[in-house]
Each structure stands twice: as C-alpha cells, then as structure tokens.
C-alpha cells in the first residue's frame, strides 16, 4: 500500500550523508557525530566519577587505572578531545548565527544565479578558521597524550 512506502522518511543515513551539498552540511554531520561521541563520553565519565561514592580505596584504584592507560585508551581520549574541540568551536559559530544573526548577511532581492548570503564568504571563512584552530589544538592534544606514553 502507499502508506507503507518506506521512503516517506529519508532516514538517519540520508540525514548524515552530505556528499554533493554545501560545506555547512558537512559541518552539520560532523557536529552531530561529535555530539553523540561526547554524550557517550559523558555517561562513561559519570560512571567513573561515581567511584568516589564507593570509598577512598575504590577512588584510589580508579585514579591508578586512569594513570596507566594503554595505547587504545589514549586514542579513545584523543578522539574525545577532538570531538570536544570541534563541537565547542562549531557550537560557538552556531551561537553567533542563531542568537545574534551574525555571518548571515542581510536579506536581499534575489538575483540569478541566486547565491544565498547565509552560505556566503564570511560563513565559509569562519568555518575554515575554526577548522584550522581545531586541527592545531587536536594535534597538540595528540602529542600531549603520546608524551604520556613516552613515544614523543
């Protein structure tokens, strides 16, 4: 039947697939993915902190475990650090867009070939700057974690 047509809702994969679209759509996808990573980390973090309630011995043991992380745990921390950096920086850009109406341009009379001002040069420059800052800080975070392993 027509009502059973599954293509009524394009679905989460279509939602996260930015190929062929504008750069803001890529930032949207990355923002969603990093948001999910941070949400999962937050749950794990609360579980970790919960060991305080089990007494000093349990807390000391947790601290010892955190002090001697292996390479895979460090890579995990590096991904979380990158997620936090990107999500925070892109979040600041979105706050400028949404709460203050900045980087959007003014309403104009549409003229062919119809270049939307909300996706204009200033928006793209902001994206490139925040990406550059995030990449630099992420590399620095990686070096800091590798130093803890004695690799750097």
């Amino acid at each position, binding site marked *: 039947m027509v009502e059973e047509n599954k*293509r*009524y809702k394009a679905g989460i994969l279509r939602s996260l697939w930015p190929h062929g679209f504008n750069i803001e759509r890529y930032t949207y996808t990355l923002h969603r993915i990093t948001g999910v990573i941070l949400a999962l980390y937050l749950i794990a973090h609360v579980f970790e902190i919960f060991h305080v309630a089990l007494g000093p011995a349990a807390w000391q043991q947790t601290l010892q475990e955190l002090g001697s992380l292996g390479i895979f745990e460090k890579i995990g921390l590096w991904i979380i650090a990158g997620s936090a950096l990107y999500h925070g920086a892109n979040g600041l850009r979105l706050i400028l867009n949404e709460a203050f109406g900045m980087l959007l341009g003014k*309403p104009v009379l549409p003229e062919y070939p*119809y270049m939307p001002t909300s996706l204009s040069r200033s928006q793209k420059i902001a994206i490139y700057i925040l990406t550059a800052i995030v990449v630099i800080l992420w590399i620095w975070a990686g070096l800091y974690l590798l130093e803890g392993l004695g690799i750097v």
Partner: protein
Amino acid sequence: MKVRIRRFDGQKEWWQDYEVEAKPFTTILDILNYIRENLDHTLAYRHSCQMGSCGSCGVVINGKPALACQTRVGELKTDTLRIEPLYNYRVIRDLVVDLTDFVNKHRSVKPWMIRKNPQELEEAPSEFKVTPQQNLTFIQFDYCIMCGVCLAACPTVAIDPLFIGPQALAQAYRYIADPRDEGFEERIDVLDDSHGVWRCHFAGACSYVCPKGVDPAKAIQYLKKEILKFRLLRKRKKAVPPAEIVQKEPPPNAPKPPPFDFKFEGGVE
C-alpha cells in the same frame, strides 16, 4: 545518455533504465517528456510552467533535489542520470509525491497578514505604508514558489517528519518581518517548539538547493533571534498603522492629462 528513474506503482519500487539522446542544454524535464511520449507512457511526474515559476517539477537529480525544468544535462557533468521522487515525502506514484503534509505545515504558521484589530484589514481606511528599505527585509522570502525542494534536502526533516521545515519557517519570518503584520504572538507557539525553529541545526542545505534564492536557512536563524529577543527581553517591533491618504494639489505648471476619449469599435451584434 543513460537515465535511471526510481519507479513506484503503489505496491513495489524499482529502478528503470532508459537510453536517451541529450544535448548539454537539454533539461531534465525535456528528458522526462521524451521518455513519456516515446519510450514509456506509464511514467508519472508533475510539471506545468516549464520555466521555474510553478514549482511542480521538483525531483531528486543525482542525489540533489532540484527543479527538473531548470536543471540542464550539461551542468551535471555525468553520462548517467539518476532521477528519484523528492525525499521526505510520501510517494504516490513514480516521481509524484504527496504534498498534503507540506501544505499543512505551511498553513500552520498562518502565512497571511494578521492585525490585532481585524477591522483594519476588512475596512482599511487607507493603505499600509512600507518603505523600500522595509520591503527589502522580507521580499526575499516572498519569492517562495512552494516547490518543496528545501524539505527534500533538509537533514532534519529526514529524521523528524514533524519538523515544520524550512519552507514554512521562511514564510513565517516573511510575515513576522513585515512591518504591517502584528501576528508574532499568534505564531510563536508553533515556531517556539521542539519541532519548530529549534529543530533546525543550520545545515544550510535548504538554501543551497532553493531554485529561487529564497535562503530559508537565513530566515530560520533570524526567527531564532527574534524569538530569543521576545522571550528574554519582551521586545517586539511596532507595526505600522494604516497611513493617512493626503490629497496633494498638483503643482501649478504640471501638464494636464489628455481628455478621456475612447470609442469601443468592436462588439458582438
């Protein structure tokens, strides 16, 4: 060139291939017309004006929603065309989608002029004055032809069908930004909702695919700003009152209009 069309007959879906000759300036609508007239009479799709004014022929072309009449083969830079019905809509048949939800969402934001005193609209003593500068604040969003392409591109509508969507939100802002309108408080319950403006995360895909340059993403961000301003500061612009018509005397040396002398020579006996 090879054309792959996503077909749906009410029961099952399938891809059907056609071989069509096309030049760089051939539009996708020309190809669809050719297929229906010469290759397959059962192909269903919508079209009307063939010049990007009616908004009937929205389809997904190689993964990107667009108007079939405004998309040319040359700009796609490919030998294979994939044509699908618009995403995020219930498909009725082949490339024809059901726009009922879309129109209901549009209607839900009350896209018409609202005055606190409705008498002013019914029995307006004079016109409502809008300066060209004021006109520029909303005229861009007035260009919407309701083709529905923006909803097909929106990644949020893809996961939340209850989201009002960029088209309706842009139309809400069109009236809210209009200095003659006083309906902000009437619309705010629909807009300031979990399925309203706050569901938009500014992917900008709606503005990217809009065939008329309406820029719905910009309108939505402006709406968020207006709602925050209203909720936090209780600040709203004051609507213009009906203007008083002042009958001006013509200058003394102004040329006089020619006398009205018109004889109707046609007619039916």
